[in-house]
Every structure is written in structure tokens, then in C-alpha cells.
């Protein structure tokens, strides 16, 4: 047997208006973790979709050899049949089915169409043990955090006798400890002879676990780095990705902080379904003009819920508390009122809550402030084109035209569209919920620059982020949330990673 498990040769893939992949060659050795990195829209996801048959044979040119055999997959079932399993960034689990049912979906432990529950359960338990997930096989997916769902996805792949596992940004929505666990799991799978391809924008974790790193830029292979031969620094990877040296991760910033612009007092929110469960418990937070305030905490600590409840009660029931803007009480009981009071909330979940995927980029950008490009309710289309074009250039949204559908953008570029929408709404107080999730290092820098610029214009910004370096790198002040409560507040000058981590984790069950 050769030591190359996968070889893709001269892959070219075109979409109407864009060539997503140009003559890309890519090979993976047996038993390695091969990282695939590159800027947003570089073609990483597309390459993996070609590989797994999402884009069927014939819709691209080039050859694919897996285990030495030529492959011409027409759909995912065919690629899964040979042991190639892809885990998409948007998890594909069925929320109201149990773990066991999800594990064997489409691959049921059954005889003549009748499910053998005993075998299902015992196999499920064996798989859960393999991936180190301590949950009952009967737990419903909807009752688990994203981190655990990710583990279920991997267990599901193992159930299909996976030989090459493909993970597209698996850690994008995981916090650090969950990411850690996931990477451990990949290393463990590697011991058992399962190769994997890891797509990630978190350069740190790439340099930690990868055996080889392939860098894509603008749809072409730039280079493949072999980590066994030389030590690869993070800066080295970044240079390959963006084509130049990026000396600082965070832009320089002089804060010029004014008086308090927005404040929330005694804010209490209850869960919309389990109405006796408090999700925000007596919260008091504020932001001043020109200030960037970080909200740190674990996934599920109630940060998103807090922000959404403030944004026109878009989340929760029985909300009590008062909001002040410039010292005066304001009414933010509906989203319209919140927006007209100058509040914006850019969501973390771009597909479900951020974008109208079947609409054009331009329509998405103007949606929250349509009246700005309309007179008497009639849209001024030329003006709309001009302003959305400006945002495309300012944020570097990579697209063939602003008339392209949001659905056809790469993940990171979709995120930029969501941001553009809220910048266009011209708010005074912004809640940015994981604004750099799934965004490449170069573009992250651009987004930090935009945040700084907003602050220098005198806006107040809340930044919700699971990446501690980011919080420490650009915030003036930091709140730490745990289980729906604010458990700490500190100036970032006196904050360290360890100190914040301690507050995030103490009393964790």
C-alpha cells in the first residue's frame, strides 16, 4: 500500500461568474492530520465539496484518487461508501431525535427495514465511549451544547467506518476547552489510523495538531508545508495565506472614552419555553462613547440571550429592567424601537438569523435601513447599488457582483454581509456577537479596524466573543458572564488570559 491515501489532481471548478478552484492539486498521506487553510473565499469548502461528491463528477474537471483508485462520486452516499466522511460547519443533526437515532441515520442498525434497538444502543454506547462523550444514548440533540454535538458528528462518522475524515471549521463555534477536546480526539483517531483533513481559521490549533498544511489562495494551491521537516510558525502560515507579513494581529488603537451612552439596569430575562428558568439574572452593564466592551464567557453562559433580549426583546419572556441612553430611560420593547433608538445586534448565527440566503447581497445589506435608500417608500435602486458597492469594497466582500445571492458566498464573506448590514443601519450602540467567527486572519484585522473606527466615531460597542485573545486585544473593559450572571468586570489593562479564564470557569459543574 502506498502512503498516500488521497490525491486530487488539477481540480478546476467554476460557478457562474467565478472560478472557485484553478488547477488545484492536493494530497493527503495515510494517517496524518492535514490542515487546509486560506482566506475567506479561497475555495477550501468548495474543494472538499468536490471531494465528497456534493459537487458531482462532471461538474468539475480533474481527477481524484482515493486509496489508489480513481473516484467519480455522484453524491455523498458514494463517497461515504468508500470511507470519506465530511462534517460540515453547519451541523447536520436532527434536533428532536436522540443521539443513538442520529448516529445511525441513513445507516440504521436494522434487518429488513426493522430497527434492531438492542444493537443500536450497544453500538451507540461503544461509539460514544470511543469519542469520549459522557452522555446517555437517549439524550436529544436539542438538549446538548454545540461542542457535544460536534462529538456526536464524529461518532456518526465513525459509525460509517470512516477512513478519511473531513472537518470544515469544526472549532469555529466551540470555546477553547471544547476545541481542545476535539483536537485531542483527532489526534487519538490518528493513532487508530484515521486520516483527517482539518479546515480552520484558527492558526494556533492548526500549527498544534497538523502534520502537513496546504495553503490555498484565490482558488489555487500556494504551497504545502510539511511540519515534520521543519518547524512551522504561525507567522509563517499567515504569510502564506495573505501573501505578506502580518506583523500585528490587532490594530493599534488610542481609546478616547466619553460619557456613558447606554446602560441596562436590573435586567432579568426568562427562558421562552421553560418560563421558570432565568437566563439573564439581574444584569447591570453599561458602555461609554468610544468604548469597546467585551463580554466573555462560555458557550451557553447567556451572552447571546442577553444581547438579544436587549435588542427589542428578540429573545426571552417576562423581561424586566430598564434601559438608559445618554442618561434617559428609553423604550426598547420591540426590535423596531430598539433600531430607532440606535441599537444594532449582529448575530452569531448568520444563516438562521443573519441573512436572507435566497436574496441578493445588496438586498441583505440594506434591509435594516431600507428607508435610507428610498423616498416615499420607493427604493432608489441606483443609490442602493452605489452604497452597497461601497460596503463591498470597504469590507472586502469577495463576490462576483453585489447582485449575487447571499447563499453562494463563502462562510466568511456571508459574515461580512451581516456586518455591512448593521454598519449601514448606522447605529450608536452595537452588539457584535462573535463577529469574527469563521473569518480569516487578514479579514479579522480589517474587522478590528472597523470596530476601532466605530469607537473613534463615538459609538458604544459590546463585543461578544469566545476568543480570549480577541477580547483582550481590542476591548477597553471586560465583563465575564457565567450561567446568566455577570460574575466579573475588569479593565483590560488589568486583565490576563488566566484571570478571565478563572472567572469563566469557577463553579463549573
Amino acid at each position, binding site marked *: 500500500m502506498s502512503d498516500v491515501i488521497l490525491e486530487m489532481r488539477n481540480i478546476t471548478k467554476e460557478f*457562474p461568474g467565478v472560478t472557485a478552484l484553478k488547477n488545484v492539486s492536493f494530497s493527503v498521506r495515510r494517517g496524518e492530520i492535514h490542515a487546509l487553510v486560506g482566506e475567506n473565499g479561497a475555495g477550501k469548502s468548495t474543494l472538499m465539496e468536490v471531494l465528497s461528491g456534493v459537487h458531482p463528477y462532471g461538474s468539475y474537471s480533474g481527477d481524484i484518487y482515493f486509496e489508489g483508485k480513481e473516484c467519480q462520486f455522484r453524491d455523498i452516499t458514494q463517497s461515504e461508501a468508500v470511507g470519506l466522511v465530511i462534517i460540515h460547519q453547519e451541523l447536520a443533526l436532527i434536533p428532536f431525535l436522540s443521539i443513538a437515532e442520529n448516529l445511525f441515520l441513513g445507516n440504521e442498525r436494522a434487518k429488513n427495514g426493522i430497527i434492531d434497538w438492542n444493537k443500536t444502543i450497544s453500538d451507540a454506547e461503544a461509539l460514544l465511549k470511543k469519542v469520549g462523550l459522557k452522555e446517555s444514548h437517549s439524550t436529544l440533540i436539542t438538549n446538548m451544547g454545540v461542542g457535544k454535538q460536534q462529538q456526536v458528528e464524529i461518532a456518526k462518522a465513525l459509525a460509517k467506518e470512516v477512513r478519511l475524515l473531513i472537518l470544515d471549521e469544526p472549532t469555529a463555534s466551540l470555546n477553547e476547552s471544547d476545541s481542545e477536546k476535539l483536537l485531542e480526539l483527532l489526534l487519538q483517531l490518528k493513532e487508530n489510523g484515521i486520516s483527517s483533513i482539518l479546515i480552520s481559521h484558527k492558526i494556533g490549533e492548526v500549527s498544534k495538531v497538523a502534520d502537513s498544511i496546504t495553503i490555498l489562495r484565490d482558488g489555487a494551491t500556494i504551497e504545502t508545508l510539511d511540519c515534520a521537516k521543519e518547524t512551522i510558525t504561525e507567522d509563517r502560515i499567515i504569510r502564506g495565506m495573505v501573501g505578506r507579513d502580518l506583523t500585528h494581529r490587532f490594530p493599534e488603537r488610542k481609546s478616547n472614552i466619553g460619557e456613558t451612552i447606554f446602560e441596562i439596569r436590573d435586567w432579568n430575562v426568562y427562558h421562552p419555553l421553560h418560563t421558570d428558568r432565568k437566563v439573564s439574572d439581574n444584569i447591570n452593564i453599561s458602555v461609554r462613547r468610544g468604548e469597546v466592551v467585551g463580554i466573555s464567557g462560555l458557550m451557553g453562559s447567556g451572552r447571546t440571550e442577553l444581547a438579544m433580549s436587549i*435588542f427589542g426583546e*428578540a429573545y426571552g419572556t417576562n423581561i424586566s429592567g430598564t434601559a438608559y441612553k445618554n442618561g434617559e430611560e428609553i423604550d426598547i420593547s*420591540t*426590535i*423596531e424601537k430598539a*433600531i430607532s433608538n440606535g441599537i444594532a*445586534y449582529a*448575530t452569531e448565527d448568520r444563516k*438562521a*438569523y*443573519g*441573512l*436572507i*440566503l*435566497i*436574496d441578493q447581497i445588496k*438586498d441583505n445589506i440594506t*434591509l*435594516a435601513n*431600507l*428607508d435610507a435608500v*428610498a423616498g416615499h*417608500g*420607493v*427604493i432608489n*435602486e*441606483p443609490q442602493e*447599488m*452605489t452604497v452597497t458597492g461601497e460596503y463591498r469594497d470597504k469590507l472586502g466582500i469577495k463576490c462576483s*457582483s453585489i*447582485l449575487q445571492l447571499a447563499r*453562494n458566498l463563502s462562510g466568511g464573506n456571508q459574515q461580512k454581509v451581516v456586518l455591512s*448590514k448593521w454598519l449601514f443601519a448606522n447605529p450608536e450602540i452595537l452588539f457584535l456577537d462573535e463577529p469574527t467567527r469563521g473569518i480569516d486572519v487578514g479579514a479579522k484585522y480589517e474587522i478590528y479596524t472597523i470596530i476601532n473606527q466605530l469607537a473613534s466615531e463615538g459609538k458604544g460597542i459590546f463585543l461578544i466573543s469566545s476568543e480570549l485573545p480577541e477580547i483582550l486585544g481590542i476591548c477597553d473593559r471586560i465583563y465575564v458572564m457565567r450561567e446568566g450572571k455577570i460574575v466579573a468586570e475588569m479593565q483590560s489593562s488589568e486583565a490576563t488570559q488566566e484571570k478571565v479564564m478563572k472567572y469563566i470557569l469557577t463553579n463549573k459543574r
Partner: protein
Amino acid sequence: MKTLASLFKKNIREYGMLIALVMIMVFFQWKTGGILMKPINITNLVLQNSYIIIMALGMLIVIVAGWIDLSVGSVAAVIGAVAAVLMVRLDVNWVVTFMISLLAGALIGAFQGYWIAYAKIPAFIVTLAGMLVFRGLTLVILNGEAVGPFPVGFQKLSSGFIPDFFNYDGLHLTTIVIGGLLSIILIFMDIKNRKNQQKYGFDVTPFYFFIIKNIVITGAIMGLCFLMASYKGLPNVLVILVILIAFYGFITSKTTLGRRIYAMGGNEKAARLSGVNSPRLLFYTFVNMGVLSALAGMIVAARLNVATPKAGDGFELDVIAACYIGGASASGGIGKIIGAVVGAFLIGVMNNGMSILGIGIDWQQAIKGLVLLLAVYFDVYNKNKSI
């Protein structure tokens, strides 16, 4: 410049249904030995289908918003009954009746819209209930009898023609003048649109294609006008129709209101989080549907000159089919007014053509069903290919 092949590929989707309509017309023209395109039949075709088209305008918006309305046939019937009782039994002036009936339609729409938008009951269920309720009320109001005839003014709503200001023998010149004006306006708008697109550096269709397109459209309008002019001229209904189509076409494609409806149908949660007041929009979408159903109901009654308990039976199916044939998406957020109109005409021509050929209602239904399925398949197939 785009290649001819890609141009064709893109436009087969845009104009696919139009081509299908023309093909079906040619087919029936041939099969009926030329009866289909006779002036009197063309006029009849418009009269017979006007109410389907009117309701399809409202239905398209409902479908784009992500829902469906099953009650339109029953609402049309109940409003026809209300109008009939007002005019015939209570001797109310027909203009007043007309206004009251439209208002009643709005109220019915508001009633259903409330349950859908604010009480969050799926439209399928609310309007299924509405379909039964209003059919029942029609029977109650009419006491199970047919009520008519109506004042002449009211009848003219459906059976009248616009007056002729020129007295030219055998040809209704006003009709031709109006057709000419309409063509000029359309050409002018298209030129402006094209200039705008060029200004912003977007790909425009090749010039020869632009010319051909305008010649075809003008030809179709003028041809239709000549046919009608050689009979009795433009029917009043057609004038109402053109105005309504232009109005709703404008609302859906050019206004913030329209944009928000598409956004809501495309992703309700994201639209809400962008400040779109989706319950209110949805509510008014159904109010609008109610008003258009009411108008359609009156036109049906005026055409038959009697309100019957069975009026409007099964209309909802033709109306919904028209929208889907015209390219609306069942999951919301996609669909065009002009598509729904073409879809409605397609169904109308089939109804008419098959009736002339003496095909029974049984087979007509079966054939229409298959056409619906094929049309949507064609759409889905094209979309999948272009991803």
C-alpha cells in the same frame, strides 16, 4: 458580452413560462382550427380569466410571504352574495354596494390575517377553516337561492367595454391608441432601465436581444389590441386588470414594502431581527388578499348577472396553480407578479382551448394537474442545474 448559450440558459428560466404559453396557444390555435384567436374568443378569454388573475395577484404576495390562502374561492362567493343581496333585496346603489363589498373583503382578510399573524395559527389551517366558514355563510346569505339580476352599471363591471372616441367603422380606434401608448411607455421604461444598468456596469443582454424582446412585446400588445378592436374594443375588466398588474408589479419590485415581504418570506427570523415588523406585514398581506378576492367575487357575479351559492367553487386551485406555474416558490421568498399573470393566462388558455375542443371537465382537471407538476419540475430542474 455573454455567450449566446449562457444567455439562452439564463433566459429560458425567465421566459420559460412565456414560451410555454405561446406554444400552448399555437397548439390550440391549430387544434381548434383558428377559433382560439378569434376576436370574440380572445375577449371571452380575458373576461373568463380576469378574476383568476386578480386573485393570483394577491395570492402571489401571500405565497411570497411564505404562506397560502385556501379561502379565496369562498370569499369571492360570499362577497358576491353580499353584493347581490344589497343591490337586489335592499336596493342599495351599485357604487355604494361596490365600496361596501370591498370593505367587507378587507374585514374578512383582517379576520383571517389576525389569526395567522398574531395568533400564530398556520395559514393553511386558518384559511381551510375560512373556506368552510365563508362557503357556509354564502348559503346562509343567499338562503340557498340564486339572487339577480343586477343594475346595468354593476353588470358593466364585467361585460362592459370602454367607449370609443373615434367613429371609425369596424375598428375600435381608442383601443389601438391605448395599446400604442402602453407600448411606448413600456419601451421607454425598458430603455431607461437598460441605461441605468449600463451606468452601474452590470452585464446587460446584447443589444440585438434587447431589440427583439421589445419588438415581440410590442407586437403582442398591438396584436391583442387589433384583435379586440375588431370586436368591441377593450373590455372594462381588462383595463382594471392592467392597472392592477402595473400597481402590484410596482409594489413588489420597487418599494420598501415589497422588499420587506420578500425578505420575510425568505427568512422570517432574519427579517424580524432586521427590524421588519413581520406580523403586521403578514396581516396586511391577508387584508389585501381579502380585498382582491372581493373584487374578483363581484366580477364573477357581474359576469353571470346572478350570485349563486356555488360561485367561485374551486377557484383557489386555479389561482394557486397559476402562481406556482409562474415560478413562485412554495417555501416563500421567490415569485414575480408577471409570472403569476402568465401562469394564470396559461391555465386560462388551457381551460378555454380544451372547452372548445369539447374535452370534458374530468380530463381538463387531470391535464391541468399534470401541467402544474411539469411546470414546477421544469423550474426546480433549472434551478438545480444553475447552482
